[in-house]
């Protein structure tokens, strides 16, 4: 009797363990397939960038038989990617710096002081996350036309920063409120003014939050398309996404050239992603949850 019970117990635990193993194997195969599906379009893009047009047609899905680096050079010239790369860098870096600085400054006031308009201001800034960016295109275009901002770097730097500020402020306020008040009091006793506290204490202590803001802004600005499309006409000011857009009709028959141009634009963001992925994931989620 007793032995029988034990063996049936053993038996069922063995069956359960076997079930677990089978489940895990199926699950992992499934997850691997999903990962491949997610990554495949990018893999296809980058490998195609190094084929000849003939090979791209005859054998579109395998690795290039010989790696043609000339495509990159040709794409670089045809789409003036060097210029676009410089423009994208200027706009992205300036707007990122401005976003981080203004975000930190505003967050300092909103997180460390109490004043009458505080609640209103927080709601006012958060509102920005609900506003669809496209609905402001026409008025922004006419407004910037009036003050002569169109076709300048500012036409991108200023609206990029303005639209990213709500997220930057939200992330930084959340972080700054966790910094203990006692630190500030100690600094005041030591004779620091508010500016001293901001520059010597709040900024350095908020580096984790500020770097998240910086990475997110950088990615968003580097990839931004609509504002650039509408506010920039001068071809010498085009950003990367804008110069890629010419491939959506003009050069569509030269597939490998398009692939090469896209690869050039995509590689910096992929590298950045590989380095900062944890921070990017957390930041984007925190930012989007409020939006």
């Amino acid at each position, binding site marked *: 009797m007793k032995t029988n019970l034990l063996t049936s117990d053993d038996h069922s635990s063995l069956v359960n363990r076997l079930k677990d193993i089978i489940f895990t194997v199926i*699950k992992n195969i499934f*997850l691997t397939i999903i*990962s491949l599906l*997610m990554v495949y*379009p*990018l893999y*296809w*893009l980058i490998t195609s960038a190094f084929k000849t047009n003939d090979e*791209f047609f005859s054998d579109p*899905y395998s690795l290039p038989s010989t790696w043609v680096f000339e495509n990159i050079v040709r794409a670089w010239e045809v789409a003036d990617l060097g210029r676009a790369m410089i423009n994208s860098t200027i706009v992205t870096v300036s707007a990122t710096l401005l976003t981080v600085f*203004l975000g930190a*400054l*505003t967050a*300092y*006031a909103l997180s460390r002081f109490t*004043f009458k308009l505080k609640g209103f*201001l927080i709601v*006012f800034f958060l509102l*920005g996350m*609900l*506003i*669809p960016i*496209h*609905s*402001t295109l*026409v*008025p922004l*275009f*006419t*407004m910037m036309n009036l003050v002569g901002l169109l076709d300048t770097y500012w036409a991108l730097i*200023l609206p990029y*920063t*303005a*639209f990213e500020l*709500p997220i930057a402020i939200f992330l930084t306020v959340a972080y700054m409120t966790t910094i203990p008040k006692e630190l500030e009091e100690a600094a005041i006793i030591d004779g620091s003014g508010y500016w001293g506290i*901001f520059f010597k204490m709040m900024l350095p202590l908020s580096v984790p939050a500020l770097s998240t803001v910086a990475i997110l802004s950088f990615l968003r600005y*580097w*990839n931004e398309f609509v504002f650039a499309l*509408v506010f920039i006409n001068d071809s010498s000011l085009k950003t990367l*996404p804008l110069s*890629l*857009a010419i*491939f*959506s009709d003009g050069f569509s028959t030269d*597939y490998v050239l*398009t692939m090469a141009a*896209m690869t050039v*634009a*995509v590689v910096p*963001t*992929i590298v950045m*992603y590989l380095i900062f*992925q944890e921070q*990017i*994931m*957390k930041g*984007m989620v925190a930012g*989007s*949850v409020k*939006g």
Partner: protein
Amino acid sequence: MQSTLKVKGLLVITLLPALLLYSFFVIVPIFWSAYYGFFEWSGLGEATFIGFQNYVEVIQDSVFWRALKNNMIIVAASIIGQVPIALGLALLLRKSNLFQRFVRSAIFLPMVISTVVVGLIWGYIYDSQIGVVNAVLTAVGLESWTRAWLADPTVNMYAVSIPIIWNYIGPYLIIFIAAIQNIPSELEEAADIDGATGFQKLVHIILPMMWTTIKIAIVLCISGSLKAFDQVFVMTGGGPAQSTELLATYMYNNTFMIYRYGFGSAVSTMIIVISMLLIVISQIVMKRKNLR
């Protein structure tokens, strides 16, 4: 006294720059746009006041309603396509071992790619000659299903929705994983002791505990879908014959292609109104469900 003055000065200096920039570029344009909606204006020269005529025309334009319907298809596709898939994947990806972290990174990766690139790549994937979709269909003997995916009005809205799902599934996955990890483990252990099956745990513990997060995800789907523009603009430009027109492409084409700034402004205003309405409605609907 001096110190309160100091604080006031500090507040003005710290808040004013961001406040001005944000107001000027984000808030003021909304009102400006509503105002310009009352004018017939080509962007150059005289603007003529025409009252509500633009708004009336928008409402009577069948293309506007088609664009709205297309936006709704994207809302539906992202709610149906993103929320359950991300939820399912989150359940499978709760651990943080190396393999699972790798899968998470792979799923999140498209999020950092330029939307223009996403549009272009998927344009090729759907291409009737060189596209992977038709190649796969032919390979498995479903040749009769092959078609020009982006040109065929019966399927092209669904076709353009898929890259959007692919592009944005990562954040939902990460939100859901965070929510699952926040569920106290005692609850599941207690359920295990009571002999609950995996499915019972899912329905009675995990899903109810995640309801707030799911609601957030649905609101994100709605507001995100109304922002949809880049991928579709690059893939189809709203065509052929306006079959993939979205509110945003409709606004863009009217304003910057045929220079109807007043009309475009009226459409812009409608986009904001619709977006706010949808968010409010979804909140009310989901609040009710919560009470039951």
